[in-house]
């Protein structure tokens, strides 16, 4: 495995991590804490939206973020030849 290969792989990995963590921050600290009062003006059924993010929505987002990461990394591993076939 060449060094440039490894470095390029790592760079793409970090890029994904940054983007996903930005979303992680936005749905929890952003929507659930910092902007919760503003978002509460909007209703989602019986839920004020900020409250919904804080108590439910952010958790759904977390699960989705991890599975998206898994998918992206599986593709990345294949692209750079790092997927063990066993």
């Amino acid at each position: 495995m060449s060094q440039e290969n490894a470095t390029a792989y790592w760079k793409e990995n970090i890029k994904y991590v940054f983007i996903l963590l930005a979303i992680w921050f936005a749905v929890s600290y952003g929507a659930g804490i910092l902007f919760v009062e503003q978002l509460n003006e909007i209703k989602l059924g019986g839920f004020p939206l900020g409250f919904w993010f804080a108590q439910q929505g952010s958790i759904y987002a977390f699960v989705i973020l991890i599975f998206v990461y898994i998918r992206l990394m599986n593709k990345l591993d294949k692209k750079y030849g790092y997927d063990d076939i066993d």
Partner: protein
Amino acid sequence: MDVQTWTYLIVGLTFALYIGIAVWARAGSTKEFYVAGGGVGPVANGMATAADWMSAASFLSMAGIISFAGYDGAVYLMGWTGGYVLLALLLAPYLRKFGKFTVPDFIGDRYYSKTARTVAVFCALIVSFTYVAGQMRGVGLVFSRFLEVEINTGVIIGMVIVLFYAVLGGMKGITYTQVAQYCVLIFAFMVPAIFISIQATGNAIPQLGMGGTVTGSETYLIDKLNGLSTELGFAEYTSGKKSMIDIFAITLALMVGTAGLPHVIVRFFTVKKVKDARKSAGWALLLIAILYTTAPAVAVFAKVNLIETVSNKEYTSMPDWFKKWETTGLLVFDDKNKDGVINYYNDKSKDATFIEAAEAKGLAGNELTIDNDIMVLANPEIANLPNWVIALVAAGALAAALSTAAGLLLVISSSVSHDLIKKMINPNISEKGELWAARGSAFVAVVIAGWFGINPPGFVAAVVALAFGLAAASFFPAIILGIFYKKMNKEGAVAGMIVGMLLMIFYMLKFKFGIFDGGKEAVAGLEAQWWFGISPEGFGTIAMMANFAVALIVNMFTPEPPQDVQDIVENIRIPSGAGEALDH
């Protein structure tokens, strides 16, 4: 059949199951004892991690805590789930590739230092012992409330069960028992929740029911609850009381602490390859999320139920469950104004209009004290569910407590047998010798944990908060820097861990236990002095930042790590070729 008989039956069956699995999963090598042989499938590992994670607190107390905290309860909901994203993206895959057996192992080898290993073992032991004391206590409490067994006897029964599958099977026994325990606990949690959701809102899915309308009306349940809360002088349910900075800090401390807890991290050493580590984190969170998105719904249903059933009603008209729970002391009625009516309200309100109105009504102080745990424990009875459902809740709570206790005990025992004995005191110990040391220390750890369960420090919950704070302040930065910054050296890491740990302990002692100001009574008064307005529960965030800062600064003035360590750090970035978890 009455509740007692059902409880003995269902709990007995689950215990028989765990023991059966323990016998099947006997550990024959240190690899099996520490990391289940390194061959656990990702879904099974996810289930085991979920059970390990969800303790008696998640199962019993959390919904209750949320029902009284309202919006503020989000710190636990987000705090105890968000950390898994950090684990999946930043930690698990790399730690798996590094291939060690324990967290102190990783720290000791990554930072090529006995000091680092010792500091890590010390932190791991404090964190795990404090956490496990709470679990054993929880086991005792469940036994006493459901099986009418004295608390201490309950603790001992719990100890014997855990001893059996932990000592016999090590991580292997624990993992597969946890899989079974997950099934029991999730079923036990969801059944009452679904029933109650249907009763309250007509919707069988609690997550949707929470946002739905009250059965037979157009009013949204949450609006109704907000109304009921404010009528009684409490804050709106959806508003909460804590300051934004504290909510931010606590949530972050919990998330980061989660990602730094040894008993959680070690769960990612048991899978076959790096890809499985990522998948396992995903499955774990999905399975945890099922309970964590149901709990706030249960909190809302239970609160509305409770208020409607008791508030301003005649004491003599209270249903059976009320009297029953009164005998346990979890529900206390003190008729302060002697009118025979249950006057439940916020007597600490600062709202002048409310205070006037309360006095005008002849109220003399809040008359009903409700323990958090009631909200889950009494829910099935409040909703008139069949006896077997109530028995199921007992089995579920025990599954939750025992699974977490086992995971913690394994960390303790492997810290002693592997990190202390094998790596530091007697490196020439044979495989068989190490295995016996591991079994022996598991045994001793169970006994000590049981002792704590029987004689709990009165401050178990506070001490668990300390565990999170410590994990956030000591382990998380050291591991993150170890993975992502190949030039991070031992001096920086050790300095950072020590500073983080000491700062966290100091803040806890001062502001949670009041040690420097005269003890517990002084604590409330000290709130004004909180640094940045952050509570002890949230301080882990600050201590973590201090760790990072100190580590990076010290790193600048001290030698680089040796080239072979730097090469390893580069190597763990490549997912393929993860061997079986190595020990030497």
